[in-house]
């Protein structure tokens, strides 16, 4: 059990943000000024929609809408401009959909505001209204089934597959058994381990989707004509002792636990129900947390290896999901835990030392997660780490 915010659509939140959502790059500047003027607001700027295929624009739209509907969001200010509105990215439609879920939403159309300064004034007033409404929310007891977690691993090293990821996997098992929802992703990093995952898919259709996602990404990798080891494992992985992509993948998939895989979701797609889901996405620490936040993750777990990190170096402070979904740093490497104490929220390094079992650590991890879900801030959340937002776009741009 944890203390969360219950939203009108039945979703639960662990934070209570007001999201400012500019839908086109042309309205970012107004939205950014509004964010500065109104305390308690967060902004997700939009880039990359111009000169893109409709498939990529749909990805952006799906991601933006997903962010808006995330349980951590109490209210949304959609900022748009009729001149730039397109079929896939339409601010009015987006506001209507948000409204239909019962979540407070305000729409600011720059073209109708009468100039830059009036648009900011009008936007600030709308944002104020949303912040005020949000402040009426109180934390209430919520069940594990109301919780959605996402995970990625990063700066992987040989401890990741032994003491880091398996603990997350075990915690995912506990969550999913209790009716909660869990996401894992990084299609590139299941190459070489896909057969193990395919066996866990709930049906053949899901299995086909999973294998198709892997073969597509592998074909794209081959089409580059490059030795994949120049790209993935990344130099830091190799420096830490990971030799091949297959090795990395086999360690990476342990973070998914052992529960059946309900479905394969598109980047930013919201799941049809509870359970464990694979998201067809990229490992980028900028784009993946964003995609998982859009899919509804309340908390994002960043499982660090970090063996290749120099002493007292910050891990990659990737925080784009931290817009609305706090980032929790974990590690199974006791050395990393000491090196990155400023960032790491949870350490399962005792497993490497033989002092603790994966099961014991998973119980402790769940306790830690529930504390964060009930309002305790993660270390990176307090200092407001925020990287630029990056959507996972796959088509060429023109």
């Amino acid at each position, binding site marked *: 059990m944890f203390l969360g915010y219950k939203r009108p659509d039945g979703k639960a939140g662990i934070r209570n943000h007001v999201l400012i959502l500019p839908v086109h790059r042309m309205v970012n500047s107004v939205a950014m000024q509004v964010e500065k003027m109104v305390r308690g607001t967060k902004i997700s700027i939009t880039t990359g929609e111009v000169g893109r295929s409709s498939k990529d624009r749909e990805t952006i739209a799906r991601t933006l809408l997903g962010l808006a509907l995330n349980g951590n969001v109490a209210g949304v200010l959609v900022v748009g401009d009729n001149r730039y509105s397109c079929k896939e990215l339409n601010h009015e439609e987006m506001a209507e959909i948000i409204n239909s879920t019962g979540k407070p939403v305000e729409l600011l159309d720059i073209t109708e505001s009468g100039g830059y300064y009036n648009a900011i004034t009008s936007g600030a007033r709308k944002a104020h209204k949303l912040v005020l409404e949000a402040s009426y929310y109180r934390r209430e007891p919520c069940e594990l089934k109301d919780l959605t977690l996402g995970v990625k691993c990063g700066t992987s*090293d*040989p*401890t990741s*597959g*032994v003491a880091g990821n398996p603990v997350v996997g075990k915690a995912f098992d506990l969550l999913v058994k209790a009716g909660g929802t869990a996401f894992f992703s990084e299609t*590139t990093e299941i*190459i*070489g*381990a896909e057969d*193990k995952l395919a066996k866990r898919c709930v049906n053949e259709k899901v299995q086909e989707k999973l294998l198709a996602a892997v073969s597509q*990404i*592998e074909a794209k*990798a*081959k*089409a*580059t*004509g*490059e*030795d*994949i*080891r120049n790209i*993935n494992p990344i130099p830091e992985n*190799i420096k*830490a*002792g990971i*030799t*091949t*992509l*297959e*090795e990395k993948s*086999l*360690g990476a998939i342990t973070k998914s636990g052992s529960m059946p895989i309900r479905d394969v979701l598109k980047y930013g797609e919201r799941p049809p129900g509870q359970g464990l889901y694979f998201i067809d996405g990229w490992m980028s620490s900028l784009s993946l947390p964003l995609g998982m936040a859009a899919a509804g993750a309340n908390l994002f777990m960043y499982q660090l290896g970090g*063996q290749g990190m120099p002493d007292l170096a910050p891990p990659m402070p990737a925080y784009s999901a931290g817009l609305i979904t706090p980032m929790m740093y974990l590690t199974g*490497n006791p*050395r990393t835990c000491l090196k990155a104490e400023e960032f790491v929220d949870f350490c399962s390094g005792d497993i*490497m*030392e*033989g*002092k603790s079992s994966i099961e014991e650590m998973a119980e402790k991890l769940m306790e830690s997660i529930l504390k964060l879900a009930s309002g305790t801030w993660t270390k990176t959340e307090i200092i407001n780490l925020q990287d630029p937002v990056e959507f996972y776009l796959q088509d060429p741009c023109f």
Partner: protein
Amino acid sequence: MCKKEGLVLHEKDNVGTALNDLTAGSKIPVTKNQTITLTEDIPYGFKFSLHDIARGEAIIKYGEAIGQAKDSIKAGSLVHIHNTEGQRARGDL
């Protein structure tokens, strides 16, 4: 439990993982009956071979192939990119 120095993750594996910075010449117990003498330094987290591995043979970790030996590898050697290569997603092959 005394601190282990090497870890074998699966019975099928032909590599072990160093649980400390290990030095050449050390004798590392890896199973009840087997001890490996390291032929070179193995840094924390890196792999060492549990027996001789022939060129082209699969390197097994987590009970699965993680790549192939590029050369023959003597027991107790460091197993990494200099003597091992992955097969998947390779555009250069």
